[in-house]
């Protein structure tokens, strides 16, 4: 019989206390991990989306900032238009090194079943593009040809077929992008040439034709020449080109960042509430339990246990419960956040990427550490009080 064995037996012997303490540990660890996973995952996702865009400034039709941002981040289908001439006007602004137009299209809502429904299509111009083309050259060694597309992470060819059919047009999937944790994973990128071809074919073949307005574009991606300040160039565009709003890449997704701030606030509040409640419950459970065990602990001292042994055995007991509870909480959280990832993204309307196994270590250690700290703190006070009591006093009723 040693301290650890005694602690284990005592845990098994008092089910109510053990379950309460374990459950508190589970809650604290799970909530800590879930919060840090979602918040840091969301930040990763925002950063990645801005990086992927690869432009210094995005010029959008005035008043459509939010729509475009949610399209770029979440892959929400959107239709925004401005005149093609805007492109030349923006190019003429001093400090602008390169511009490239993009068109945002969407497929029919609920098109053929599962593989593609309500899909966000990004049409780019391979002649001027500086964001997708370089990636393509690196990945597949060449640009997209007529009828070829690049898909988000989840885009794939339906089973038993060679092509993806959109508007009665057969598309060949050349490559897939890395996951972003958003609906952007089910969006598609294609060239202007392919889009026009698709529109042409759809007129006669599809139930509802794809309409690309003549002389219109959705957004302009822009690179700023070295030595120029992004904000100044953006300001200049605002002055010189009417009817558009330039968004500097670092300011992208403002709406989402604000949403994240409120998410952070609400999770902080719920964290603090859970921690306080857990601590209060634990303090109550431990002081009740230690009172109830006064006589037993006094008896152990009479039988030759030192003060340290009594103190230690109480802490070891609570420590085992804390670790077991926290470990369960961690496993549950990891399972639930990865299994229900899409549901969480859709419910919170904030994208988040699950971290790699390595990135998981920090938050996991944090969760377990916090649970252990809470429980040790709550157990420490009554454990100290009882272990420094005279054994004869402890044994008296």
């Amino acid at each position, binding site marked *: 019989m040693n301290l650890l064995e005694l602690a284990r037996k005592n845990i098994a012997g008092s089910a109510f206390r053990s379950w309460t303490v374990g459950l508190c540990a589970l809650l604290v660890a799970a909530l800590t991990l879930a919060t840090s996973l979602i918040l840091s995952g969301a930040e990763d996702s925002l950063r990645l989306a801005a990086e992927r865009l690869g432009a210094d400034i995005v010029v959008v039709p005035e008043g459509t900032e939010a729509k475009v941002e949610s399209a770029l981040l979440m892959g929400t289908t959107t239709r925004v238009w401005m005149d093609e001439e805007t492109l030349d006007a923006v190019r003429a602004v001093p400090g602008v090194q390169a511009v490239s137009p993009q068109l945002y299209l969407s497929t029919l809502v609920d098109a*053929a079943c*599962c593989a593609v429904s309500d899909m966000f299509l990004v049409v780019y111009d391979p002649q001027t593009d500086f964001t997708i083309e370089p990636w393509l050259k690196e990945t597949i060694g060449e640009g997209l040809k007529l009828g070829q597309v690049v898909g988000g992470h989840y885009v794939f060819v339906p089973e038993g077929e060679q092509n993806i059919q959109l508007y009665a047009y057969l598309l060949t999937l050349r490559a897939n992008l890395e996951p972003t944790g958003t609906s952007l994973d089910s969006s598609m990128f294609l060239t202007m040439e392919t889009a026009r071809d698709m529109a042409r074919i759809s007129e006669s073949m599809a139930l509802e034709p794809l309409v690309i307005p003549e002389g219109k574009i959705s957004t302009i991606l822009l690179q700023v020449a070295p030595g120029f300040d992004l904000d100044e160039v953006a300001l200049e565009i605002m002055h010189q080109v009417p009817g558009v709003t330039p968004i500097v890449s670092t300011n992208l997704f403002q709406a989402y960042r604000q949403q994240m701030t409120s998410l952070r606030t609400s999770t902080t509040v719920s964290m603090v509430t859970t921690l306080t409640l857990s601590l209060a419950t634990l303090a109550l459970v431990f002081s009740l339990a230690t009172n109830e065990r006064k006589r037993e602990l006094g008896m152990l001292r009479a039988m030759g246990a030192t003060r340290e042994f009594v103190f230690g055995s109480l802490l070891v007991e609570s420590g085992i419960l804390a670790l077991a509870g926290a470990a369960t909480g961690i496993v549950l959280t990891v399972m639930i956040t990865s299994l*229900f990832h*899409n549901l969480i993204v859709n419910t919170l309307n904030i994208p988040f990427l699950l971290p790699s196994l390595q990135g998981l270590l920090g938050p996991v250690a944090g969760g377990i550490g916090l649970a252990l700290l809470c429980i040790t703190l709550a157990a420490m006070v009554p454990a100290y009080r009882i272990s420094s009591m005279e054994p004869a006093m402890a044994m008296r009723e």
Partner: protein
Amino acid sequence: MKAIGGLLIILALAVGIVPALTSCESRGKAIALPNGKSIPMKCHWTGRAELVAAVPLLAVGAIMMPTRRRETLQALSVLGILIGAMVILLPTTLIGVCANPDMLCNMVMKPVLTFTGMLIILVGAAGFFLARRAESQ
């Protein structure tokens, strides 16, 4: 073993009911063919298969409740674990669900079934170990 049996019955009911509420068909979605007919999607068939898995699991739970013999309890637990594995494999590999990550079957049905399957395996394993304490006859 009453508790284990009861848990398995509850989980079996979940396996049977969840697909009915969360398959795409439950939301009136189906593949529309050019000739006007519609055929059910993958998730519908997964739902059917889960129902087929839920029935024996229900039986396992029900038989487990009054059983006291160790060998029988262990055999039932192993059966429960195997069905739990089926519950996970059906929507993930064997049949699958619809491909679009934003569809209900993908967002809710698959993870719920996977999670329930894991719980079934856990409960089954617990049953197997608890059965060691039961009497052998």
